[in-house]
């Protein structure tokens, strides 16, 4: 059924239909509306979950880790500083192969303190062993939660997943969203069947000490499971398309890429603006296209290389920066295109909530075609001196 909903509420309703056994979260802007809505559902008995109130994000994800280890389907949500506080537990959750699903309502990291959107928070956890999905709109943000659970809990994967969507731009915006019915979700998402779990009648220890004789092999297993999850994501995305008509079979979306000369690469809600700018440029006869990355981890290097190998210039828009180096997406795209000869130009853009308009996208395309890149786009020089 199509409904006009705030992004946060649409996600909360999707999570409710995923039937999590345990929810543990700590409220933080702009994630708050999701967990408020879920707490209300639990209080009103429209959601049969254990809602654990905690004193910090570290405790929230620790409670999720423990509940998942005991065999529960688990949900949490956070953003920015909250995710930073979860850093240690994020690595442990992936290492213990616990399929926790967590919404990341993307927000900038301090200092300076900012409540507005960029993608620095989840990007900074790119090495933690979690799957990372990025949504362009609220429909996708909602659908990706069903898919994330199905993939994360698949026995070939067993890894936790971030579903990332831009703070305020999506979380606080009302959009039409097609909500699935409970029986549809139940048909797509089977009950979680843990492979190992903490059970006093069949004892097992999790997350043990590993000597140098074993540590590397454990890390290799996590990496292999994350890389192999690409196949499971494609299967789950295709099945979703067959059942509900919205296909998520590819980890990337190509928009007007067929004969594109200059390709823009980006993730998240900015892609809506980019598509509009591309339509304008196309009307003027300029061959621009967009390659949108939906799955950042595992990184779809092959698909990126295939999509971009024919273009004459690539412009990567990063809402993050690995300080002292470059934007994370630009680094990945360069790696994927290594040896192809296609020039990749990186633009750090829209940090801390700065708006991006269609003219900015056009400017970036101009700069990429002129070979000018690896810059912060739109810096206000007048405040720098």
């Amino acid at each position, binding site marked *: 059924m199509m409904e006009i909903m705030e992004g946060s509420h649409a996600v909360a309703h999707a999570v409710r239909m995923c039937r999590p056994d345990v929810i543990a979260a700590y409220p933080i802007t702009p994630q708050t509306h999701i967990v408020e809505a879920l707490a209300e559902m639990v209080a009103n008995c429209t959601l049969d979950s254990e809602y654990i109130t905690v004193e910090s994000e570290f405790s929230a994800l620790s409670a999720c880790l423990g509940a998942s280890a005991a065999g529960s389907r688990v949900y949490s949500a956070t953003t920015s500083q909250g995710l930073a506080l979860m850093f240690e537990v994020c690595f442990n959750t992936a*290492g*213990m*192969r*616990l399929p926790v699903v967590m919404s990341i309502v993307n927000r900038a990291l301090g200092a300076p303190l900012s409540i507005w959107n960029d993608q620095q928070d989840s990007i900074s956890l790119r090495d933690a062993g979690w799957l990372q999905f990025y949504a362009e709109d609220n429909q996708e943000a909602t659908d990706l939660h069903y898919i994330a659970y199905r993939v994360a809990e698949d026995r070939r994967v*067993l890894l936790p997943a971030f579903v990332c969507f831009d703070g305020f731009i999506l979380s606080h915006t009302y959009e039409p969203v097609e909500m699935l019915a409970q029986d549809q979700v139940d048909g797509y998402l089977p009950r979680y069947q843990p*492979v*190992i779990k903490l059970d006093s009648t069949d*004892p*097992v*220890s*999790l*997350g*043990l000490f*590993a*000597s*140098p*004789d*074993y540590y590397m*092999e*454990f890390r290799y*297993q996590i990496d292999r499971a994350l890389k192999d999850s690409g196949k499971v994501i494609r299967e789950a995305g295709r099945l979703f398309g067959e059942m509900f008509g919205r296909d998520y079979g590819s980890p990337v979306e190509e928009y007007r890429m067929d004969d594109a000369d200059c390709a823009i690469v980006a993730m998240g809600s900015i892609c809506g603006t980019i598509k509009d700018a591309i339509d304008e440029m196309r009307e003027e006869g300029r061959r621009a296209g967009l390659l949108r990355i939906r799955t950042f981890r595992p990184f779809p290097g092959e698909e990126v290389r295939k999509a971009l190998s024919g273009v004459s210039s690539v412009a990567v828009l990063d809402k993050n920066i690995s300080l002292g180096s470059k934007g994370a997406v630009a680094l990945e795209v360069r790696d994927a295109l290594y040896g192809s000869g296609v020039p990749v130009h990186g633009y750090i853009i829209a940090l801390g909530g700065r708006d991006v308009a269609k003219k900015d996208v056009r400017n970036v395309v101009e700069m990429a075609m002129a070979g000018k890149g690896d810059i912060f786009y739109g810096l206000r020089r007048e405040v720098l001196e």
Partner: protein
Amino acid sequence: MPLGLGCSSRPGTSRANRTGSWRTFRPVFVHGRCTKCGLCIQICPEGCISKNSEGFPEPDLAYCKGCGVCAEECPGEAIEMQKEEK
């Protein structure tokens, strides 16, 4: 030992952790000075020394970490710690 999913392990499997790989110095038992008192067997933190068929103490080098407590405590100074080259 094959790795358990999620760094998991069943009870009673700590012997799979062969701590002998940590060793830098290995204990060498000099039988001429050994009185077979068995103190080394009692005080070994790893519990890896046992008597052999002749009654002399013998370490299981798969688990001996080379801590040297036995050599330090031996009343007859019958245990020498020798550096191992690997």
